[in-house]
């Protein structure tokens, strides 16, 4: 596959001060979740874990263990077959209308 640079040699991007990593809110509709586990398995930053609270269907839906690690890649939103999870950018000033585009 080729050489991979060790992390300690990575250069810091020149515009790193301007780039703001978005802050995310992860919404989980617990009773829609059927427990397939795709979001937990494939989140690139391992933000999600199985919770310990049963939902109406008798399965354990996911919960976000560290919402701060989420980079809003949107993979969980896209991979969920049941529309039970989505992540949106946390609105700092407007404190309602989460999820509306």
């Amino acid at each position, binding site marked *: 596959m080729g050489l991979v640079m060790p992390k300690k040699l990575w250069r810091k991007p020149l515009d790193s001060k301007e780039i703001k990593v978005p802050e995310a809110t992860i*919404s989980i509709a617990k009773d*829609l979740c*059927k*427990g397939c586990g795709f979001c937990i*398995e494939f989140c690139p930053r391992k933000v999600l874990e199985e919770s310990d609270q049963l939902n109406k269907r008798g399965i354990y839906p996911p919960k976000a263990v560290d919402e701060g690690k989420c980079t809003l890649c949107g*993979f969980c939103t*896209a991979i969920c*077959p049941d529309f039970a999870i989505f992540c949106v950018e946390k609105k700092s000033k407007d404190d309602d209308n989460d999820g509306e585009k």
Partner: protein
Amino acid sequence: MKKSNILQNHPFAKYLRQDRMPHIWCEGCGNGILLNSFINALDELSIDLDKVVVVSGIGCIGRAAGYVNVDSFHTTHGRAIAFATGVKLANPELKVVVISGDGDLFAIGGNHFIHAARRNVDIKVICANNFTYGMTGGQYGPTTPLESWTTTTPYGSIEHPFNLVHLAAASGAIYVARWTALQVRRLKNSIKKSLQKEGFSFIEVISPCPTIYDRYNKLGTATDVMRLFKQISQVQHGYDPSKAVITKNQIMVGEFMDIEKPSYGRLLREMTIRVQEKLKGEESK
């Protein structure tokens, strides 16, 4: 009618008939992912939803037409493409999408598929291929791999399966792609591309069927199957579709065909104009 807010502000809520959710599909079923990707594509394209028509056939994926909040029709087994042809030609302004399964499209519907592809009718066909007839409990179909256990092949399947992308390309489709249910972004992009191309397009979506096919053939949980997809799928755009056979160790994915060819509707319009011009000429004499 749409008082339900079961989806709780999900960004795609407006694309779904909320009073019919949650859908009937099992946990880990690829159909839900296909629906999600399809809606994602519609959302990103900002298409006029009043002009989208979704036609589905019989099968688990056939229920998809009932869940999308657009004009939709759930036809008899195998006839979705024929129905869609009628819709598109009667009103060329509509964007007609056929969402159906491997059995519906290629066993009973095989004839309609090859002819619509041959004619290059401007419809977009998205096939959820889970290698089985899921709705009726897991019988074999035209895409079931050799030696699979199904309820009607209890000694292992002795039939060679179709290579769907090869069939589509050979029949005349102008856009042919295959993705697994894991590759959601690429699938969404393919759907977007097909919606913007004029002509017959075919997208095969390799889907897990955790309750039936995957369980009968001991492929593990839904997550195991998705991990398998990740492991054995290889993205090769422009790969020769006739060689893109699905095996236990390899699933070639990508865009296999992307050409331009006048669609049936376009040729029909041109012919109609020619006929009418000639008539006008004769009538004015």
